[in-house]
């Protein structure tokens, strides 16, 4: 049975189509829903094993990136999401989706919702939006979304991607192996140097998972490095079938299909 993936959008979400397409390629049945539809019938969440909040500018990021959408998850869908996570299902937030999950408190706490969230994503040190490809190292396998501690290339495209938290919280994330992706330099070392670390994130954090590993958020866009022509140097490199980002979706769908069978 194909696992079911929900791509959840709101006003201003703009990466839902390519995200859904990639999920389908990876073997899932993907449905795109507007958050209004889910708020109208929260129990629909039970149909899915994987929820993805894609990139974009939900509600214009007008009150800070992801804040209004995050507020909806916390005020309108709280118990449905708690049940969904307690049932062992997966959630992924990419770029704006990461901002939403983090600001909703779904990534940092011991409970499903951390109240209030203890980490944030704020303005890039450059003070503005930037689009560039970065190298990332997978440094933890706490989450089923990744397999193998390798280096991958994805593009970033954001203005508010700088991961900030008090030192104690950063230590906790590190010791609990919740830091999954770090920005690295040409030698593969985590770095604070621009543009390798494109936003100045503390401890070079590009993506983290929840303590359960079920929820993953990352700023770079794996869905933009799926096909062989996506990589900026594809005309120089030998041909590959898929880009680095595809594997993340395959891993997620594989795990979700186990859940679908239970």
């Amino acid at each position, binding site marked *: 049975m194909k696992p079911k993936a929900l791509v959840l959008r709101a*006003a*201003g979400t*703009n*990466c839902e*189509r*390519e995200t859904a*397409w990639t999920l389908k390629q990876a073997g899932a049945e993907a449905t795109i829903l*507007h958050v*209004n*539809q889910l708020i109208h019938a929260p129990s629909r969440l039970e149909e899915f094993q994987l929820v993805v909040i894609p*990139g*974009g*500018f939900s*509600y*214009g990021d*007008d*009150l800070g990136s992801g*804040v*209004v959408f995050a*507020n*909806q998850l916390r*005020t*309108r869908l709280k118990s449905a999401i708690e049940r969904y996570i307690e049932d062992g299902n997966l959630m992924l937030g990419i770029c704006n989706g990461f901002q939403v999950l983090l600001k909703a408190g779904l990534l940092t706490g011991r409970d499903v919702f951390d109240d*209030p*969230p203890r*980490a*944030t994503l*704020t*303005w*890039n*040190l450059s*003070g*503005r*939006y*930037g*689009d*560039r*490809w970065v*190298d990332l190292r997978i440094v933890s396998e706490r989450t089923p979304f990744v397999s193998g501690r390798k280096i991958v290339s994805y593009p970033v*495209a954001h203005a508010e991607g700088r991961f*900030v*938290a*008090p030192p104690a919280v950063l230590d906790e994330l590190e010791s609990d192996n919740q830091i999954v992706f770090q920005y690295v330099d*040409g030698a593969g070392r985590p770095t604070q*140097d*621009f*543009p*390798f670390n494109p936003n100045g994130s503390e401890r070079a954090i590009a993506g983290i998972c929840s303590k359960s590993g079920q929820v993953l958020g990352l700023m770079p*866009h794996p*869905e*933009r490095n*799926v*096909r062989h*022509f*996506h990589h*900026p*140097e*594809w*005309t*120089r490199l030998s041909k590959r079938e898929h880009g680095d980002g595809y594997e993340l979706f395959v891993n997620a769908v594989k795990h979700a299909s186990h859940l679908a069978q239970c």
Partner: protein
Amino acid sequence: MLFKVRLTPKLKDQSPESLRAARTLKEAGLHSNGLVHRRLILIEGKVDPGELERISRELLADPVIETAQVLKGDEPEPEGECLLHVSRRTGVMDPIEQSLMRALFDCGIQPQGVKSVDQYEFAAPLTPAEVAKAYTALGNSVVDEAHRGPLLLKSLPKGKPYRFKLQQVDVRGLTEEGLKKLNAGMRLSMNLPELQAVQAFYRELQRDPSDVELLTLAQTWSEHCKHKTLAGKVHYREHRAHESGPDSDVVHESLFDMKLLPLDGRIGNLLKDTIKRATEELNKPWCLSVFVDNAGVIEFDESEAVCFKVETHNHPSAIEPYGGAGTGLGGVIRDILGTGLGARPILNTNVFCFGPLDADPRQVPKGAMHPRKVMRGVVNGVRDYGNRMGIPTPNGSIHFDPRYTGNPLVYAGCVGIIPRDKIQKQARQGDIIVVAGGRTGRDGIGGATFSSVELTSESETISAGAVQIGNAITEQMVQECLLQARDRGLYRAVTDCGAGGLSSAVGEMGEDTGASVELHKVPVKYEGLSYAEVWLSEAQERMVFAVPPHKLEELLDLFRSEDVEATAIGTFDGSGRLKLTWDGHEVCDMPMSFVHGGMPKVEREAVWNSGVPRGLPDPIVKSEDPGEILLAILGSPNVCSKEWVVRQYDHEVQAMSAVKPFTGPGRDGPSDACAIVPRLGGDQAIVVSNGLNTRLGDVDPFWMAQSNIDEALRNYVVTGGDIDHCAILDNFSWGNCNKPDRLGGLVRACYGCYVAAKAFGTPFISGKDSLNNEFMTEAGVSVAIPPTLLISAIGKAVSLKGLTTMDLKQPGSKLFLLGFTRDEFAGSHHEMVTGRRATEPPRLDTSMALRLYRALNEAQRQGLVRSAHDCAEGGLAVAVAEMVLAGRLGAKVRLDPRLAPSGAEPHDATLLFSESNSRIIAEVAAQDALAFWNLFKGLPIQEIGEVTREPRLLVFGMKGDKLIDQDAQTLAKVFREPLYKAFGEELPRTPA
């Protein structure tokens, strides 16, 4: 009750927002040490203070980095006199307010009103002069207001309710003078014959028009909407009296000698006789809809088509660069949404022309902004709108000339994809008129007529209302609903509300059927709008639909389900008339035939004075050293890297990009064009490119037009675009074409377009013109922009595998130059940097060029081309230098007299820097060289050297002497640095 929520960054003056504001103020010459930026949110209504306290802490503040404090609206703050507040003027769109209402609603609060304010705390109170400076730097007086000292308010400002009163305008009794006065007083921008036509019409009716009737006619007949110059009658003459001599340029070709024009020089319809004629004569079966809709549509595959439109938004961008550029882009995106039954936008392009970034502020004319400020605003506007819409921006260019200082140019383009069975639309009698999207406000009233007049040193004050502020998210919400409604077949026609607002949208859709609209039903942002304001407002993010009555409920439900406002406001009633009412009172009743056909045709005079001396800037290179000249051109504003801008645009969203703006291991090689794969999972790419040269128009617009087309096509072809499936778009920005010399140049450019498009087999599918680009200085001098023609090209790639990037790939590869190099330096960058005046502009041999491009396409299909790059500004030298820096490899090049046509005896400098058209450099693996060569039998092709491992450019002259020896790292630095430097930033490192 009014509350004031104060959000203070924990990092105080070190927060990113504080630092950014401090940088901006420093640039404006103000002390900004210790500046703290806060967000203030004003909330009015019956709200429980305790609840607000909690929401402020948890929702409004980011608890990790901010603290929140709730005050009463009129409660003083301790920093008192050190504060400066900047906020949107009452009635101007502020997207934050909508999102705030949404978020508060989710928390169970429904306030009456909210407002967001930026608060700046300075180390000491500001003097009035400093306030003025800070206000200009941090806000824009057109849309923002500033308040010094504590902000003490008891309630939010509100508009006054509107009391209906029909306004009639006496036109019947007016003399010529009286009509002219009326024209100026109401800012109608009509000419005398048009005013007289209106007068005659109402004399016959034996009544006077209402204000809204008169304004509707002015708007519908405006240059912006009817293109009366380009589509009008022209009487063209040529003067060839000038002798060639040291101070004048030589005489160039006569259009009469080329038999392009009737001998009496009378042109019935310039557009039809040139641009459209090329398309008609070519009659390509893959052109599915041209010149009739909001965008031109061409075939993509058996089930889908692509459409492309490019717009200008020059005058609004001069006054409010951020809002002007953003709404310019928003407008062209709506054009795509309003093409056929609606296309999905998949790609944006942006081309800008500014004054020099290093302009002495004292030299910037009064009423104009410094080019740096204009550029920053424009780039931010495009970035914030395009990125929010989720449309990639992978193609564009930026050009500089002092004459753009008072009148910058902003071109915004958008490509869409549409099912082939959704290309046709037709409103039918009985269809309901529905307006959806943003609410109507007072913004942008008179934009269509405003864009048709010259800018003056006072424009900033008198045309403030003509600027619109956009909200990309509203447009994105409309887009998603529109496309769902399209696929469910819920409407029969759609168009966007652009210039002229509802007047233009409903007027156009109802041209055949007639329309009646109840204006009081249109949702407004605030009270106080008159019926005329509602009808003519250019408030953004609105689309108008023709909905069959039995589909109305379903359509309204769909929009409601995603929080998009949609309202039925009238009917396409079959009356053949335009009828408007306000609460039952008739305010307009005119036959559509007069609205659209009543405009008298005026013949304009056009003169081409050949041989007028051109001004040249002071030379920046004194020596003859080719290496120095190369670096000077490589780092010159038009040629240098636009990375500082491009990295701020999302060019990856929608996961389609196959050739990106930058290429090579350092991701800094400038791609000639972009390629995207528009269908998820598809294998067919489209290529999009542009061509624009601001220096050739001064020499001869006839050759400029041809050169620009050739440049666009070269960029397209080198990237892998199929020359036999390529369409082009024209966008003219010209000086005031009521002046015969300006119009003379335009006529020549149009005929240049015809000749080249016809010969290349590349039809025009859409275009737009902006013909009043002059800036009137305080001293009364009218400065015209350089004649500027943007050509955009779009078409299918030969294959996905055939896509080619410009970075050198492999040591040992052979380098070939395709095309002949001639002594053609007039308008070149060599002429500009050395000051050595030239007379011959690049001409174009289209039949040779077409054969070259087809041969290159064949080589790409066969996989023989490792890299390819267009020779343009700076000629062969700059092109090879860019390939070297992009590939982090070297090139050894030997100049050869055979690069020129036989018998030409060229100089080294000609071969290096001449800007002859139709030339391409190609890298071919050594083992493929023969096969490649064989494809070019009988065509100009020459091996010029090879790719080397050491990243260094070496060029040897015809005598074997070393002319250029430069390492790739220096080339990259010279190429990348100028824009970063202009904006006071450090050059970022590259990955390789």
